[in-house]
């Protein structure tokens, strides 16, 4: 009796172990720890979101999810790195429009092809662009800005956080819609641009909302935001103010091409779940971005749409990185 009980117990343990193992083998088609490669240094916007997602996904997927920073060349080094990693779902990359939409247009020799080398997994957030002026500026809205620019054509300068960034091209879009030739001055990132605006060194700046926060009302005035709907309750969009332009930036996740569809779907679902969880959504909102998440098809559509949207703008600007 004693013996059989023992054996029974032993067998049941064995059975449980076996089912667990078999279950693992069937469901877990991703080997080892999964890594999300952030092609930027730790502490930036995409790094923070990747870490928030990784934290949620290790529970959803039941396996370790780690974030690896591979910074360099505005994200190109990390992108090239992930391109060469195994297409089994164990490596993912955080991308944005600069890497996936603008770079193929401005680099004659790009070390990766966004369409051929990668498969979209999910879009994880979007961010609007803002046009702001120093708080001491007499300009109060877009209409006033256009009038002012027409009166002071020599002052028609705008700053952006980097040459070849989406805010740079969005600024050109603004100039085109307003019918004004604007001179672009690029800064070495958002922080110096913000300083220049606060110090009244440049008449206006365009940046992503994430970095150009609305938290300096006594130093900076935001005239318009770039989305289809208002980002800030009291700041109208460009469209509302008579300029028919809009555009948002985004962060998304891709995997190396040839990753099996089932794995992509599984990862995609895990991202959707992570972003939709209230605490992650809240953190993303606090950073000034919007937790807008889509699955792989949705993300593919976003990339395609943005390519069609920005290609003429970028080409008209004549901007080349090499």
């Amino acid at each position, binding site marked *: 009796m004693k013996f059989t009980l023992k054996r029974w117990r032993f067998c049941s343990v064995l059975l449980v172990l076996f089912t667990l193992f078999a279950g693992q083998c069937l469901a877990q088609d991703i*080997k*080892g*720890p999964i*890594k999300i490669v952030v092609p930027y240094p730790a502490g930036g916007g995409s790094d923070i979101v990747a870490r928030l997602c990784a934290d949620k996904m290790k529970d959803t997927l039941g396996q370790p999810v780690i974030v*690896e*920073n591979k910074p360099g060349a505005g994200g190109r080094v990390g992108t090239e790195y992930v391109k060469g990693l195994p297409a089994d779902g*164990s490596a993912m990359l955080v991308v944005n429009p600069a890497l996936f939409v603008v770079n193929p247009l401005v680099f004659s020799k790009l070390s990766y092809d966004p369409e051929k080398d990668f498969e979209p997994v999910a879009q994880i957030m979007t961010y609007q662009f803002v046009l702001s002026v120093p708080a001491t500026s007499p300009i109060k809205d877009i209409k006033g800005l256009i009038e002012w620019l027409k009166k002071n054509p020599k002052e028609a300068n705008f700053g952006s956080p980097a040459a070849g960034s989406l805010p740079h091209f969005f600024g050109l879009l603004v100039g085109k819609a307003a019918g004004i030739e604007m001179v672009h001055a690029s800064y070495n990132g958002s922080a110096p641009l913000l300083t220049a605006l606060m110090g009244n060194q440049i008449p206006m700046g365009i940046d992503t909302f994430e970095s150009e926060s609305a938290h300096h009302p006594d130093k900076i005035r935001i005239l318009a935001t770039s989305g289809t709907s208002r980002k800030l309750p009291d700041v109208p969009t460009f469209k509302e103010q008579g300029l028919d332009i809009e555009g948002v930036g985004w962060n998304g996740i891709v995997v190396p091409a040839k990753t099996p569809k089932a794995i992509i779907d599984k990862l995609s679902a895990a991202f959707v779940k992570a972003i939709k969880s209230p605490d992650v959504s809240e953190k993303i909102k606090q950073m000034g971005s919007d937790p807008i998440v889509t699955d792989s098809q949705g993300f593919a559509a976003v990339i395609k749409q943005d390519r069609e949207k920005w290609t003429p703008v970028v080409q008209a600007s004549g901007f080349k990185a090499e």
Partner: protein
Amino acid sequence: MKPDIHQKNLATAFIFIALGIVAMVFSVAYKLGTAANMGPGYFPFALGAILTVLGIIVATQSLSIPPDKSSRISFKIKPVLMILSSVFIFGLSLEPLGLFASVMFLVIFSSMASDEFNLKEAVINTMALLLMVFIIFIYFLEFQLPLWPGFMFSHS
């Protein structure tokens, strides 16, 4: 046995002029631009020109300053080669072979550069450093470093 030219200054002049000319040649390929809208080549071109002029000044000086013992260049090739190649080998082997193997190469090869090289001591030093590296970087700081050869395990 006085050398008849100031070797150090002449070599400096040569480096300055060579770097200056290289900078100018490449800058012309980038756009020079105008004063109001300078291209990416404007500044490096100007710097290249300045460096070339400085090189010429150093060269003329090297002819006028009387050379002495300290103006001669002398060097040993062994430490240069051993140290540089050990660093190169570390860089090449880190990702394919992992941290432990590459630290081993680095310590052993670089130790050989010293005149006081002694294999036993170098091996002990390697062991001690491996332990330190493990405790500090892997255990304590959790650096993202490839530890083992890629074909054995994936990145930790």
